[in-house]
């Protein structure tokens, strides 16, 4: 069990700063996802932990010991690559044995460990197959097994599910999650898929331009995004720009917007008169015939412009008085029709303020 500390990590490639003064502490047995669009520095961060990238500044520590100058082969890490990187000239068994041979593990223990890990990834019986004789999902599990059989201090996963088809990908999320919990290994998981990150992680690191923009569990990241960037990247959002009109409680604000006054929450301390943006998730909004008369609930008038049906939800795009569009997700049986006059109704608790 290892604590992983990243401190002030910086890496430049020519003019581009891939990772910019990134610090992060990952607890024993924790699974942390690095989530962000391509080019945000998540892969560079992972490769720095693995030792394939030498950082320009900062340090990587395992259990408080600085390993920044260690070669990859001396770090005792397990890494799963996007394309699995199984050795094509070796059978499954030989692939698994590779890391153990490098560690000069005895024959008997080798066989035991390989047997155990193959049971865990449910691949027993395929020991003598070559990688090309396996399906994508099986190859994926061999790659996992190969990185786990050496009992590494840290497990690093670089977009491991990208090359699988959608159905298998969802299955593997749970598989990797339960496997990681069972083994109890400190894990860093790189992905650009928010759903994957939310399902699999203890905590999510949202990265943009080489910096951490938000750090928290799935609920925090989704419900309380800190910036427009984060809210926009994770799920769908409505943004309504305005000014702080009043603070009515510790975390309660009234914001004056072109669509009227909106009640919302924020952990930020915002002085009255400050510009602010209200974030509301489409599924937090209900479409009603009448405005709500509850003082803590917001109601915005509009007209339905589009309706679409996705089976599990009905989506609406509602045009408001000032021409702005609010996206709404309703129950699939909700029956507002195009060009209906409606009220977008949402509780102040479900609206969230971010800085502009």
């Amino acid at each position, binding site marked *: 069990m290892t604590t992983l500390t990243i401190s002030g990590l910086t890496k430049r490639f020519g003019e581009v700063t891939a990772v910019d003064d990134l610090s992060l502490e990952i607890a024993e047995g924790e699974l942390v996802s690095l989530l962000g669009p391509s080019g945000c520095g998540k892969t560079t961060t992972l490769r720095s932990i693995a030792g394939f990238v030498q950082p320009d500044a900062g340090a990587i520590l395992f259990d408080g010991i600085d390993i920044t100058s260690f070669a990859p082969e001396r770090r005792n890490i397990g890494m799963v690559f996007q394309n699995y990187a199984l050795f094509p000239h070796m059978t499954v068994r030989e692939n698994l044995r*590779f890391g153990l041979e490098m560690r000069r593990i005895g024959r008997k223990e080798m066989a035991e460990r390989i047997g155990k890990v193959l049971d865990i990834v449910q691949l027993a019986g395929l020991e003598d197959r070559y990688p090309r004789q396996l399906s994508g999902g099986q190859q994926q599990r061999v790659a996992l097994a190969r990185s786990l059989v050496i009992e590494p201090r840290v497990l690093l996963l670089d977009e491991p599910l990208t090359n699988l088809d959608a159905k298998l990908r969802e299955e593997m999320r749970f598989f990797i999650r339960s496997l990681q919990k069972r083994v109890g290994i400190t894990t860093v998981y790189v992905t650009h898929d928010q759903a994957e990150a939310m399902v699999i992680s203890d905590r999510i690191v949202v990265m943009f331009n080489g910096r951490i923009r938000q750090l928290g569990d799935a609920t925090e990241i989704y419900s309380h995004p800190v910036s427009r960037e984060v809210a926009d990247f994770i799920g769908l959002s409505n943004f309504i720009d305005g000014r702080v009109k009043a603070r009515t409680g510790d975390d309660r604000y009234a914001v004056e917007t072109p669509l009227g006054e909106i009640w919302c929450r924020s952990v930020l301390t915002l002085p009255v008169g400050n510009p602010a943006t209200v974030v509301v998730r489409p599924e937090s909004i209900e479409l009603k015939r009448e405005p709500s008369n509850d003082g803590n609930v917001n109601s915005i008038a509009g007209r339905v412009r589009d309706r679409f049906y996705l089976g599990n939800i009905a989506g609406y795009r509602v045009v408001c008085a000032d021409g702005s569009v609010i996206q709404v997700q309703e129950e699939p049986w909700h029956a507002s029709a195009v060009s209906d006059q409606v009220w977008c109704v949402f509780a102040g608790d479900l609206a969230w303020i971010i800085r502009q």
Partner: protein
Amino acid sequence: MTVEPHRLALQRAPAARETRHRVATWLRANMVLLLIVPTLVFLGCFLVAPYLNMLVMSFRNPSTTSVFAPGYTVANYGKALTDPYYLGVLAQTIEFGIVTTAICATIGYPVAYHLARTRSRFKGLLYVGILSPLLVGVVVRCYGWIILLANNGLINNGVKKLGLFPHGLMLMYNAFGVGVGLVHVFLPFMILPILSSIQSIDPALEEAAQSLGASRTRVMLRVVIPLSLPGIQAGSILVFVLTISAYVIPILLGALKIKIMPTLVIQLLIDAFLWPFGAALAFILAASGAAVVYIFIRVTGRLMKGLT
């Protein structure tokens, strides 16, 4: 419209018409085969026919007054395969081929690896550098080496002036000089196949091996080299075959001081005028070379079992 005469023809002579029809269909389907006819004719006239002629020649009776005497014999082969002198030259030729191949592989592999993995701007220039020996004619290239390696050449004059080796070094007219000349020109034939096979190895495999605890050396030995065996195999076969049949370079840089089959065969044909015996020796060299290549393919094939 065009169907009408067709049908008439069928009525007139159904069987002949059918045959012609079948031939026409076959031709139309296999028209593309016509494209290889020029090549076949060319190879037939200038490769197969001369070889057959040589093969027949190698079974002719020797003669002192003409090219060959009437009648056929296997004595030419008998003599070549029992005389220790010729067997010795054959062994030396094969050995020379193997050593040159090994040197080319050893020198060429790191170059190929570097070129396959580099992201340098000068990559194109490196390619030109590797191909440069092939851009100069063989005679010119050899005279270049002679200027460097001769007893009063640049290197010897240099070391004598520096007082390092007062008697100079024997750099030419021996296996060393010939080896240098051959390695120089055959290196590209080793590097290019290895280069392409290394390029097809996913760099992530090397990282995976490293992450599993393998040092750079182990990564090379366990992952990169095994996966580039097809390239090593192809390059080795090329260099070996070219070496054991090389004539100009051994003549110019070895001047008959180094006994190998091609120079011996030419000597027998041109100087001694023993055409049947020379032809037999040539075929023995070709067969021996083929045998070595066959064994090499079998051995390396076993090592590449998982690759295909």
